[in-house]
């Protein structure tokens, strides 16, 4: 995003910090301290309390939910240094960002880069205020890992398109207001026949069916389009340019999924503490089951090496002013380690770690079961591990296809 203000001077920074503190004191309801962001989850609908709604509104008006986005489109217009101060002060106050979701993580940055002026003015401020929820119309039943094989078709009818077809794995589709989708406008070419469209979810002909997952939750949907009218003004970029735009959006997605490790940071008690509780500790305070202890240590060491790698990628990117090649391994390694941790956690607790609902299980235990199951998606979505390995092998290592 080409949006950053000039770096603040030192005195300007001190002044800014004071300003942030004052504003947070005035606007962040103390009752919300340390609570979760009700809007960030794709797992469920949002039911805001009046305090939460007020907090979202305040942050939305300030633009500080998307601090570095341009002010003219409702962003905060802050420099990176200022955004860092904002984050620090929010953490200090126990405040959280009420503005989130796919609009912030993926669609907003992509539209800022590829959208026309009208589109930016229409959509970005609503995302910045947390008023509109977006979902992603990418995968189809036969176009998952082979995304360029998508078939959902948009027929040109002069001033609008008519869309027919099906999307799947639409995260939060049942709660979304709008959908950013890639659709086929030309059947004669693969990537070149793809176009990027913005579809209102309440358009006639849009039908959403939640899919029940192994975790018991239904965060993903099947989305059907039957003769859905989409004005041409809702096309981002040129016709046939959708693959390029769509891929850029996926880069934002991947960055968010690996998140430099931060989003995967395990929360809650350490594996070792849980193991001492369930498997016991020996006289020297070690986990009594030596095999389990060794596997916990292996996991902890791998996790440490992963975090160090994420930090190294950041430092290298900063130094050379580009993306380090190492970044492409973060998703595969990070998601694998996340799954391994969940597996270890349930193993440590025995059958107590496999509770589904009801009596006899703590909230943490039930969360662990659901998290273990839901976490299986992480090596599939956002480009499966196999696809990432193809990317590493072909783009980084130069291993090519059969001739």
């Amino acid at each position, binding site marked *: 995003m080409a949006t950053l203000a000039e770096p603040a001077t030192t005195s300007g920074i001190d002044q800014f910090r004071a300003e942030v503190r004052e504003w947070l004191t005035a606007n962040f309801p103390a009752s919300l301290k340390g609570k979760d962001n009700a809007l960030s989850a794709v797992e469920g609908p949002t039911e805001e309390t009046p305090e939460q709604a007020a907090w979202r509104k305040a942050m939305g008006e300030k633009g500080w939910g998307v601090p570095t986005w341009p002010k003219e489109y409702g962003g905060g217009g802050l420099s990176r240094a200022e955004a860092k101060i904002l984050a620090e002060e929010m953490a200090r106050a126990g405040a959280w960002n009420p503005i989130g979701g796919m609009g912030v993580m993926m669609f907003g940055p992509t539209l800022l880069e590829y959208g026309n002026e009208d589109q930016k003015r229409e959509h970005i401020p609503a995302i910045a205020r947390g008023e509109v929820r977006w979902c992603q119309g990418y995968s189809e039943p036969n176009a998952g890992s082979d995304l360029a094989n998508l078939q959902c078709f948009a027929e040109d009818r002069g001033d609008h398109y008519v869309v027919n077809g099906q999307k799947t794995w639409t995260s939060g589709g049942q709660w979304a207001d709008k959908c950013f989708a890639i659709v086929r406008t030309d059947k004669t070419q693969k990537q070149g026949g793809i176009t990027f469209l913005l579809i209102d979810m309440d358009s006639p002909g849009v039908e959403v069916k939640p899919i029940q997952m192994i975790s018991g939750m239904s965060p993903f949907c099947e989305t059907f389009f039957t003769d859905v009218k989409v004005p041409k003004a809702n096309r981002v970029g040129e016709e046939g340019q959708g693959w390029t735009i769509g891929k850029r959006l996926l880069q934002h997605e991947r960055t968010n999924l690996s998140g430099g490790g931060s989003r995967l940071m395990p929360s809650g008690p350490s594996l070792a503490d849980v193991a001492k509780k369930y498997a016991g500790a020996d006289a020297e305070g070690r986990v009594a089951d030596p095999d389990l202890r060794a596997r916990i240590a292996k996991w902890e060491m791998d996790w440490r090496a992963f975090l*160090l*790698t994420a930090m*190294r990628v950041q430092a290298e990117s900063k130094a050379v002013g580009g993306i380090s090649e190492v970044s492409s*391994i973060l998703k595969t390694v990070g998601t694998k380690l996340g799954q391994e941790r969940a597996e270890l956690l349930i193993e440590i607790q025995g059958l107590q770690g496999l509770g589904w609902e009801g009596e006899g299980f703590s909230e943490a235990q039930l969360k662990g079961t659901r998290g273990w199951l839901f976490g299986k998606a992480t090596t599939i979505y956002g480009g499966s591990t196999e696809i990432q*390995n*193809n990317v*590493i092998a072909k783009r980084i290592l130069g291993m090519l*296809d059969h001739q």
Partner: protein
Amino acid sequence: MAVLTEEQTMLRDMARDWAENESPVSAWRKVRDADEAMGFDAGTWATMAEMGWAGIIIPEAQGGSDFGWLSLGLVIEELGKTLTASPLAASAAAASAILLGGSEEQKAKWLPRIASGELVATLAVDEGPRHDPAGVAAKVESGKLSGTKAFVAEGDSAGLFVVAAVDGLYLVEAGAGVAVSRRHLADFRSHAEVAFNGAAADKLAGGGANENGGLLDAVLDRAAVLTAAEMLGMASAAFDTTLAYLKQRVQFGQVLATFQALQHRMANLYSEIELMRSAVEAGLAAIDGGGDTRQAASLAKGKANEVGHLMSRELIQLHGGIGMTDEYDAGFTLKRMRVLEQMWGNTAYHRDRFARLSGY
């Protein structure tokens, strides 16, 4: 690759050029074929010393360049890539004991000679085939050291031993009371049994041998991280060699590199080697940082053991039959890797240590 200073980049590039051009694997093959106890070429070592590498971690006042541990690690990694045999890592680890625990007099006496490469120094810690610093039994009475050290790296050429005894670390010169016997391992490098029988011993200040976090621990951390740096060079070269081989070898009418099963194995190895690199560089940075190095060192060596082991096995497997021949270089990597895996703690040792340091 860590973000390097201009100085470090120059040093690394110089080491890389020299290793590729002046010390390729064929040079090691000659040393191997000569089959001498010393296990390296004296001329090669002299050249390395002339370039200042023996003094990288030694202060300028004692004839070194004081470039730090990351710099030394970079050089050792480059040398590892071409399997260059030298006492560089052993001497540096021994020098670190003097740096950390030596008096001004001891530093002035030994460090300039180590920095110039004229004197090979080494650590003599373990008394059995497995790394076990807690099991040290060597004793010093009235300034005379007695005990036997097994598998002392570069023991065949060392002029100075840094010896772990029950009450601390001692400096012992080769000569009277020191008997060196060759132990010929698969890697053809020097791993001598060294028997000390009343040898004159000069104590270094610092903690006793069995004390956690004492001088011995700090020195062993340095030895472990340098070993891990050598393994990183070996693993990354093994990876590059394997990748190049898969790109030219044809089977079933296709270049091997086009098979997805092999692509995914290589993608996995690539990821693992990147994690290994992060762990090794963090280990070197922790030493340069001057704080507690224990956990970072165990992470570096533990991860290096694991990935080095995996990569050296895959090196042979992915090369197929050619990898099994002595004519090809892959076997050198496999044999050296297993030796380094055992030195200064195997995977289980470092996992255990990491867990203990983490409180479980």
